[in-house]
């Protein structure tokens, strides 16, 4: 086995030093009745070539996003990631390091996390950010828990703008963690901030959770919701699933959000069929000790030189155990590294331009698809994602498009199967990767399929 350095001669000599006759003696504590005598019923080991063949065969049964005109979003977005990013995150010293528990020999990780925290705070318009969470959905659930700690209240009000998966994650934790959730139904007709969410905020409310851009793609001002929440002593949790939007939109922090959580996959990270991604988590300085997750802070070493350490660990499970702010034990280090490298390559100017290109790509796509008879763009406003109403069942249409080599979006029924009233909606995303030819192909294929089905 190529990964195992010990030779039979080593094993013999080592057993002799230990003073046992054979390897079985080292497993004597396992009760004999449950010790496996036979090998597991699995195939024997394989060489690199054989494993590569197996994996390539499986990979070939999928349609990569980059091989077709691609317009799927809903919480995961395809962007061009510079080659430098993947090279750097594969540096041995980043890829194969552990959590920086020994800061003297982990300054590389600690410094990039400090830079990451700064970038996230700047992009969200908040004062502080942590060193990342698992992903946007779990960060949202953690934000709700944090708001409950800060306000000492149990109820969370979820806007219909929240991604249905995110809502489900919050609901799972609320149900089994014994707190209360009021979830408003997703409603395309309330796009643009038309949801009557303020009516659900009361003196028991810990937080209001609103996604912007919303699940249907609309952008709107969070300030009125922030004001309504604050009037009742509740916090506003703003959720962002497309981090590139932060380059074009007023940051949630400037619209009154108390906690901003985001899915950071869009920068530096590929689609990966849903993971690993990277959750962003930012808040106000005054709440920092209620924050979940790892934090890196600046300090000095014994010689007075600047350096970085994990700090405020007394919030965390390894010290506080059942009183910890969260049970989380890790962050999403390498995905955060990819994020921060991509953000560094973009810089202020690059992120702003990338956001503009995404927005323009969506405007062009909306114009193109609006020309297809029977198809309606529901959004007044959007960033790089919007909602289409199509004749008939959207899911069947998306499948038909896929048959013809266009990945055309997400039928709302995929995420909300219990809402037949929304079964004719498709959420469509655009980004800088889409060309004029991609858009024309989508428009023409859509038109062709609809013409065939209605004729």
């Amino acid at each position, binding site marked *: 086995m190529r990964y195992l350095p010990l030779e039979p001669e080593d094993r013999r000599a080592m057993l002799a030093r230990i003073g046992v006759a054979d390897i079985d003696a080292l497993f004597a504590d396992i009760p004999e009745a449950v010790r496996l005598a036979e090998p597991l019923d699995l195939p024997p080991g394989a060489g690199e070539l054989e494993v590569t063949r197996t994996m390539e065969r499986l990979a070939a049964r999928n349609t990569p996003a980059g091989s077709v005109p691609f317009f799927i979003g809903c919480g995961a977005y395809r962007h061009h990631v510079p080659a430098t990013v993947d090279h750097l995150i594969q540096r041995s010293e980043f890829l194969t390091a552990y959590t920086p528990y020994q800061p003297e020999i982990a300054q590389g990780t600690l410094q990039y996390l400090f830079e990451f925290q700064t970038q996230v705070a700047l992009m969200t318009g908040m004062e502080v950010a942590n060193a990342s969470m698992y992903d946007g959905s779990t960060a949202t659930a953690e934000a709700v828990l944090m708001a409950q700690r800060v306000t000492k209240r149990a109820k969370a009000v979820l806007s219909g703008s929240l991604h249905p998966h995110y809502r489900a994650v919050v609901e799972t934790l609320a149900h089994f963690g014994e707190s209360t959730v009021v979830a408003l139904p997703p409603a395309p007709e309330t796009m643009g901030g038309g949801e009557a969410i303020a009516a659900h905020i009361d003196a028991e409310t810990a937080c209001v959770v609103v996604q912007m851009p919303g699940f249907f793609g609309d952008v709107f001002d969070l300030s009125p919701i922030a004001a309504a929440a604050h009037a009742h002593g509740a916090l506003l949790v703003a959720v962002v699933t497309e981090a590139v939007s932060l380059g074009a939109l007023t940051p949630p922090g400037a619209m009154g959000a108390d906690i901003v959580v985001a899915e950071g996959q869009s920068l530096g990270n590929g689609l990966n069929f849903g993971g690993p991604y990277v959750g962003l988590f930012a808040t106000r300085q005054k709440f920092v000790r209620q924050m979940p997750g790892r934090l890196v802070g600046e300090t000095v070493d014994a010689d007075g030189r600047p350096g970085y350490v994990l700090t405020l660990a*007394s*919030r965390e499970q390894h*010290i*506080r155990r059942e*009183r910890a702010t969260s049970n989380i034990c890790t962050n999403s280090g390498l995905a955060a590294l990819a994020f921060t490298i991509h953000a560094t390559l973009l810089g202020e100017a690059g992120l702003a331009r990338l956001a503009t290109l995404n927005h323009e790509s969506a405007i062009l796509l909306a114009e193109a698809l609006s020309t297809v008879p029977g198809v309606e763009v529901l959004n007044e406003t959007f960033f790089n994602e919007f909602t289409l109403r199509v004749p008939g069942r959207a899911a069947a249409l998306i499948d038909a498009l896929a048959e013809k080599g266009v990945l055309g979006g997400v039928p709302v029924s995929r995420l909300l199967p219990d809402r037949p009233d929304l079964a004719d909606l498709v959420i469509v995303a655009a980004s800088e990767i889409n060309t004029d030819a991609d858009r024309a192909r989508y428009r023409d294929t859509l038109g062709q399929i609809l013409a065939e089905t209605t004729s």
Partner: protein
Amino acid sequence: MSDMRFTREHEWIRVDGDIGTVGITDHAQEQLGDITFVELPEVGKSLAKGGEAAAVDSVKAASEVYAPVSGEVVEVNGALDENAALVNEDAEGKGWFFKMRIADEGELDDLMDRSAYETFVKEQA
């Protein structure tokens, strides 16, 4: 300082009329090491004897601080927000945590005086 009483959880209370000033003992701060943050109760909060009143963090530990007797919090030591190190420097003086209006003076009788506390600490070691 005969008016100081101690708990087995290493809190002290100094009584002045019906007001008690509460902190952690010098022995406790020594055990905790460098104290980095003190979470104080809200003024007006009513505390039950033995109930959680405050929390104290050091780099490697976090501990709850319990109310030595029942009563209502009337003042907290705001200086600790800025400078938690005061607890290390002067645990039984400037490093006090909060003042409370004592509900039942009889509860003080359950606490140790200094010599009893010192014996208790020695026995623990």
